[in-house]
């Protein structure tokens, strides 16, 4: 990580002992008290800083030394570098009990800012934040001469209000609001002058500075903003930049309506806004309260920024700032409108124009989000139809710009901030969820935790099935998006030349191929479209197999198990009988139709297996209702190996729930049918082939098959002899050399023990029946709760009963 030199320095610093540190500190003290503070002092302070900072636990420095540091920090004789170092050390030691620093006497604003940084790091135990806040406001209140930089103080103020907004009184916030309004609106529009360089040959007559320009070079004709350009800047222009930079924060903190203004007492919101429509040029702004005045100036500033963002900048990087300013301006306007709804009508008109201007430009896509948020918040009040805005945002943007990670992140945040939009079934937001998943498919690592938060809002009875399929096909979506990005736009003549009879050679070719085109279109759809035939995408999944090992696809595949588990957890809360049945059928079906990534399939099977059990627990009757599908699944030998997790859990569920106590419709014939199928399975996997090598199956599959057969036999007692005979043969199986070479000894022992226990149980059929078919309402006792545990428990009890301990059996 670090270079070798840095590593060794760090290690040394961490290992310095108390005594050595004390000696070093006294040496530094001596130097600091000397006449000149030169490079040696700086060097020592740097090393001291490293020592103090290198350890997680606080280092102790002598109280007098700490006092000395503070004195040096505040002394006007100390060079800037020394001051910065002292401040850094003091901050590193926070919270510090020996702090005598106070910001009250310091006049130099740069130093004041430095001292405040130390004070604000103390954790506010002695109301330092409030003291700093008071001092800053006092300094700002005074008229500072030109040289004294008030601009060093505004960031301190911003920090103060983050830490403790209550530390300023209303009077103080009014003072600052008033100043901010002036700085925002009335900064100089002439460029600053360079500081005279002095020297023998310097020309004492400096050139007259010209006016500031816009980013495209045109002369500015309106007031100064952050998008105004000059060679040198004046102090008030600096303040303009800083005031805007902290404006959002300030308005959020102190802008909300608290007191009643004299004008608004008896007028409703509607009337006020009518008034402002009539008098659009704000006339008597001087009569407004500071808060309202700041709001007015801030609004004008943001409006100007929006106009300025239309210009083509001469410097490319200014374009990035224009976009950031645009986002900030719209956001601030939104806040202003929330605080004073009379601004809504003014804002709506130019925001709509802005939207039409930028909606076609993908580089401005991130700015569409705050615009949409504004219309979501205020559109109703302004009786504006903003559906077109939402439609464009949710239909076009994700499809075009899923690959932009910053946009993806902010878009998903937008969805999370507005989850109430997704509850309405017919809304454009809800219908667009396939589009939203494109963000996740492409940018999996940063967005998975966001989608974990978002998914529950997208799920309901209407979308559950489609989302189930979508989650299982998420890595396919990644692959398809990759192809979409790479496929060039073909001229129409080439499109026609695609021969349907010829199979495409590459995925890229397949993108345009008539056979695959509609499949791609379905996978890449922008709107919800519930499909009845999940087999439709099978050829496409096979085709995309060549991309299955691409890193992005693999990353996406890793997110699926997490989302699947969440999916089932949420669905379990609202799913009714038919939906549960449908999910089980699809679960079994889709287990054959998964994208070919081995680790992915294993993980998915694991999740599906355990969720299958959950669904059966929710609705035990499904085992009877879906007996056809379940029989087919559990009767397929290849499933035991390929989809072991699902198979094992399915068989367990059969054993558990195929019973009259769970569904009155369960007949003996059905039990016998399941028995025969499973018996055949067990036979298949335990038969000893003399010549061919024995394939190995998961031991737990064997166990669960034995257990389920026993359970079924307990319910249809004619089957007991068959099971008993089968179980007795397990000893031969376990001891045969062909088997011992393939399975490990512990597993075989376990199988034999289990077979013996089950056989013993069947010797007492009524007990077996009780154990395996408990009344449903006893379900909450500990005995029943985790059946996977309780069966061995029950078996042990029975085994003990059958093998009498001395003194146990009477007579």
């Amino acid at each position, binding site marked *: 990580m*670090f*270079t070798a*030199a*840095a590593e060794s*320095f760090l290690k040394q610093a961490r290992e310095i002992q108390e005594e050595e540190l004390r000696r070093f500190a006294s040496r530094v003290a001596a130097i600091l008290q000397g006449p000149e503070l030169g490079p040696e002092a*700086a060097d020592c302070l*740097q*090393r001291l*800083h*490293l020592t103090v900072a290198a350890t997680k636990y606080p280092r102790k420095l002598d109280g007098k030394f700490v006092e000395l540091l503070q004195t040096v920090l505040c002394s006007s004789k100390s060079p800037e*570098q020394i001051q*910065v*170092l002292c401040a*850094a050390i003091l901050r590193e030691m926070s919270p510090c009990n020996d702090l005598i620093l106070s910001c009250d006497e310091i006049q130099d604003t740069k130093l004041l*800012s430095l001292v405040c940084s130390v004070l*604000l790091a103390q954790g506010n135990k002695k109301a330092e934040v409030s003291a700093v806040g008071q001092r800053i406001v006092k300094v700002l209140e005074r008229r500072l001469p030109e040289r004294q930089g008030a601009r*060093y103080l*505004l*960031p*301190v103020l*911003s*920090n103060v209000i*983050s830490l403790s907004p209550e530390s300023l009184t209303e009077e103080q916030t009014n003072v600052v609001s008033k100043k901010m309004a002036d700085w925002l609106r009335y900064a100089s529009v002439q460029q600053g002058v360079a500081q005279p360089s002095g020297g023998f040959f310097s020309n004492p007559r400096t050139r007259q500075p010209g006016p500031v320009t816009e*980013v495209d070079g045109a002369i500015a004709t309106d007031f100064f903003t*952050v*998008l*105004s*350009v*000059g060679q*040198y*800047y004046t102090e008030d222009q600096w303040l303009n*930049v*800083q005031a*805007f*930079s902290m404006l*959002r924060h300030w308005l959020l903190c102190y802008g909300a309506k608290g007191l009643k203004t004299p004008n608004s007492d008896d007028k409703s919101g509607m009337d006020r806004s009518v008034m402002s429509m009539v008098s659009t040029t704000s006339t008597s702004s001087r009569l407004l309260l500071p808060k309202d005045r700041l709001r007015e100036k801030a609004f004008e500033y943001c409006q100007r920024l929006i106009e300025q963002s239309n210009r083509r900048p001469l410097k490319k*990087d*200014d374009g*990035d*700032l224009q976009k*950031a*300013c645009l*986002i*900030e301006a719209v*956001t601030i306007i939104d806040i202003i409108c929330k605080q004073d709804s009379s601004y809504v009508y003014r804002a709506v008109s130019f925001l709509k124009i802005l939207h039409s201007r930028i909606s076609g430009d993908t580089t401005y896509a*991130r700015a569409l989000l705050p615009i949409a948020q504004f219309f979501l918040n205020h559109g109703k009040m302004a009786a504006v139809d903003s559906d077109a805005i939402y439609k464009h945002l949710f239909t076009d943007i994700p499809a075009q710009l899923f690959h932009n*990670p*910053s946009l993806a*992140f*902010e878009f998903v*945040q937008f969805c999370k901030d507005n989850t109430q939009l997704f509850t309405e079934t017919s809304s454009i937001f809800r219908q667009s969820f396939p589009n939203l998943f494109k963000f996740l498919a492409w*940018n*999996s*690592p*940063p967005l998975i*935790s966001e989608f974990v938060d978002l998914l529950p809002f997208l799920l309901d009875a209407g979308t559950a099935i489609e989302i189930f399929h979508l989650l299982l096909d998420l890595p396919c979506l990644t692959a398809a998006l990759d192809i979409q990005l790479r496929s060039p736009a073909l001229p129409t003549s080439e499109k026609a030349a695609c021969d349907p009879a010829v199979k495409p050679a590459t995925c890229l070719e397949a993108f345009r191929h008539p056979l695959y085109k509609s499949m791609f279109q379905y996978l890449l759809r922008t709107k919800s479209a519930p499909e009845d035939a999940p087999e439709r995408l099978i050829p496409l999944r096979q085709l995309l197999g060549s991309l299955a090992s*691409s*890193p*992005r696809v693999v*990353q996406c595949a890793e997110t699926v198990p997490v989302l699947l588990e969440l999916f089932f957890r949420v669905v379990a809360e609202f799913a009714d009988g038919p939906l549960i049945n449908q999910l089980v059928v699809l679960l079994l079906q889709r287990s054959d139709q998964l994208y070919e990534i081995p680790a992915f399939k294993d993980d998915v099977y694991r999740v599906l297996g355990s969720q299958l059990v959950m669904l059966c627990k929710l609705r035990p009757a499904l085992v009877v209702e879906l007996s056809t599908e379940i029989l087919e699944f559990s009767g397929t030998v290849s499933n035991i190996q390929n989809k072991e997790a699902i198979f094992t859990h399915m068989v367990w569920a059969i054993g558990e729930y195929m019973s009259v106590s769970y569904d009155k419709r369960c007949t003996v014939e059905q039990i016998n049918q399941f028995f025969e199928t499973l018996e055949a399975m067990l036979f298949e996997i335990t038969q000893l082939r003399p010549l061919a090598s024995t394939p190995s199956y998961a031991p737990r599959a064997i166990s669960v098959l034995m257990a389920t057969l026993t359970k079924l036999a307990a319910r249809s007692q004619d089957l007991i002899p068959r099971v008993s005979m089968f179980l007795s043969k397990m000893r031969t199986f376990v001891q045969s050399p062909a088997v011992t070479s393939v399975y490990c000894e512990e597993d075989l022992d376990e199988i034999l023990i289990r077979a013996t226990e089950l056989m013993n149980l069947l010797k007492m059929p009524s007990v077996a029946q009780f154990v395996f078919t408990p009344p449903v309402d006893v379900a909450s006792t500990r005995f029943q709760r985790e059946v996977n545990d309780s069966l061995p428990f029950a078996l042990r009890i029975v085994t003990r009963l059958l093998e009498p301990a001395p003194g146990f059996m009477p007579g």
Partner: protein
Amino acid sequence: RQVASQCRLLQSSSGRPSSPQLPQLPDEPISLQDAPGGLFQLPPGDPFPERVTVAWLSVVALAFALVCDPQENLSLAEITLRRLAPRLLTSLRLLGPGADVLLRPDAADVLLDRLLPHGQMLFLNEHFLQAVDREM
């Protein structure tokens, strides 16, 4: 740590191999246009008490992270990061063999104080940025 794993995941997803050696320090200013970067969120308690968003940027073997409150302008955060990184790289010689990053906290503090004073991000256009650079 989280930034490192996000960075590695992003790089691996774009198929670029990560180069283990440190390259020679280039003479001309490093262009960060193509440097990989991104955004992600940290839930409350891990390790900050409130929910925060992290903007990150990776340059060769180094990662820079800027931690933002939920209410802050993420576009500006990315811009700020892309301005801080090359200046820190140069001023602290971060890609070189020395240990300046440890022994020159004052250099880092001065830079941060200009571009991110008290943690406040600034809307600086290119000319303003030049004025800031001149002051340092």
